[in-house]
């Protein structure tokens, strides 16, 4: 069967999907990146291929997420796109009339306003990651609760306690205080959900006109407590797509399909033997060519350099391109 492969390498999770030629999801894989994107890409690719019956033929590859360039090097992507565009394309193909997309991932949170099927405005969190998945992850582990059970347990709360959502550090001290006062853990959890939503709306959603239909996607959408908190504040239903955690990857696959359809060329996909038949390693060094001291990353496949990045002057990048040409 022919498929389009979509890959989203994020800070916390790495997601892979295969779409068939009619844009139906044939397989999806959600992995924790665990600080090793190279391993995650190999494993994710193997798993997603194993999830469909019969031999897998890839007709196009799209990558997105903060690790999109790494995935591009390893897989040979046809399209390398930023997360905003990928998420918007995915949400739009599922729910064409969508007007607001809330996306909360591990390190990023974004709001995308759609008008007539195109991105009209967007915002991302700035330097602070307080209102994101990693914040929730951290607080869950403080309460020694499995992040997967977080939402369901939070919903058992009768009265959420108020927790400062402005900053992760303040939230934590607030939470400890409330614990010592003897509040039930469920109430604290629901309070955390509300704090995250408040933080999101005040920071990322600041000044944006949130109109229905609202779609909520990204890893944090798995948390039913957050969904409820959003609905309570916004006063409108919040839809969670069935494959909310891999929407970025779905968007990347759709973009790859669009690209292949428009340029009529063959995919640049590297093939399974390239990916599995070699050892990918990455190494970084501080370039001493100028006082900028760029941290240059080198990706190698079996001791052969295949990519450099991080150099502001592009000295390493171009030297490799010259060598390969």
């Amino acid at each position, binding site marked *: 069967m022919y498929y389009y492969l979509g890959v989203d390498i994020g800070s916390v999770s790495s997601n892979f999907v295969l779409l068939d030629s009619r844009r139906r999801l044939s397989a999806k894989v959600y992995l924790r990146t665990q600080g090793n994107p190279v391993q995650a890409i190999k494993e994710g690719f193997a798993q997603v291929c194993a999830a469909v019956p019969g031999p897998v033929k890839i007709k196009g590859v799209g990558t997105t997420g903060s690790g999109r360039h790494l995935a591009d090097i390893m897989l040979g992507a046809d399209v390398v796109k*930023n997360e905003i*565009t990928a998420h918007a394309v995915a949400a739009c193909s599922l729910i064409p009339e969508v007007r607001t997309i809330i996306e909360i991932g591990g390190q990023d949170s974004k709001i995308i306003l759609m008008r007539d099927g195109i991105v*009209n405005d*967007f915002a*991302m969190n700035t330097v602070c990651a307080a209102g994101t998945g990693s914040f929730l992850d951290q607080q869950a582990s403080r309460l020694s609760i499995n992040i997967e059970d977080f939402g369901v347990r939070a919903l058992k709360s009768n009265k959420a306690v108020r927790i400062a959502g402005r900053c992760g550090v303040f939230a934590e001290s607030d939470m400890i205080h409330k614990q010592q006062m003897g509040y039930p853990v469920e109430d604290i959890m629901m309070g955390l959900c509300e704090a995250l939503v408040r933080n999101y709306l005040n920071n990322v959603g600041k000044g944006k006109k949130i109109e229905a239909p609202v779609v909520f996607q990204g890893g944090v959408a798995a948390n039913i407590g957050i969904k409820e908190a959003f609905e309570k504040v916004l006063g409108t239903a919040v839809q969670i797509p069935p494959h909310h955690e891999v929407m970025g990857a779905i968007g990347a696959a759709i973009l790859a399909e669009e690209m292949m359809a428009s340029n009529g060329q063959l995919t640049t996909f590297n093939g399974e033997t390239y990916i599995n038949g070699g050892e990918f390693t990455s190494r970084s060094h501080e370039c001493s060519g100028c006082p900028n001291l760029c941290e240059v990353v080198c990706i190698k496949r079996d001791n052969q350099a295949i990519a450099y990045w991080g150099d502001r002057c592009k000295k390493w990048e171009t030297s490799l391109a010259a060598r390969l040409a």
Partner: protein
Amino acid sequence: MRIGIPYGLFYFYYYPLWKTFFSDLGAEVITSSPTCRLTVDAGSALAVDEACLPVKVYYGHVRELCSQDLDYLFAPRLVSVEPRSYICPKFMGIPDMLRAQVPGLPQLIDITVDLSRSDRYLQQDLIKVGRMLGYKKSAIQEAFQHALEENRRCIQIASQGWSMAEAIKIWDGNLLEPPEAGDLSIGLLGHGYSLYDEGLSMGLISKIRQLGCKVHLLESLDAERIEMEAATMPKRVFWTLGRKIMGGVINMNKREEIDGIIYLACFGCGPDSMIGEMAERYTTGKPFMLLTIDEHSGEAGMMTRLEAFCDMLRRRRRVDESQFPAYG
């Protein structure tokens, strides 16, 4: 006589003035090298925590100049450069902060520039500087007039679409390749000392140009027009740069050829926290994006935002164009 001028803060507005003034009086002017990571690191280690990134970077440049065997370091106390408007209070304290925190500091020329009510302080200080360098009042006045003229010439160069950093290079006699014309036009605003310092802004201007955009900066707009636009605000903006930026926002918002506006803010900047917000509110007709940088920002995050912004502008335009019938 060797006088050092740090490559930071108001360097990007007044370097031609300062350089001409001191050169005319027979001094050799030494500048620190353009901002790089070492500058940022050295500055962050030296400066008070509360300082914003451009001030920290300025410390880094002062640090570099300390080892240059200077007779004097030029670090003016900027209070106000025009009537009824002020510069951020951190600039007022620069000479004092440097003295308190930088070991091995050369002797400072810390003239007070306060033109909010009169140019009395500036005149007094200029004469003091002249005595220090062994010149008479008339020679000082002459050098100052020439310096003002040179500065105007540099601003004139910038008005042709160069950033002030590039204009200074051209003014200094360098030849620069003009940037390629792009298919998108982006209005880029922010404080000049963060925007035009490519080492500090992580090469923002060149990154936007590489994405196929023509960059419109404040200097390319008509200065009088900006003042008129800024005067339409319900209350006069207190800060000189903030007022000009707001005038620029209002003007760019009206101009059809500009597809979107990007505002570069520095984490920890007091004025930015207000001006950035107001700029967003005054941009009503087109997309606006606020970029915040600090000393540990990753370039990847900035790239993602810029790419997404350009994607959005291009897709929007495609839809706009497709609404017109092809046969005109």
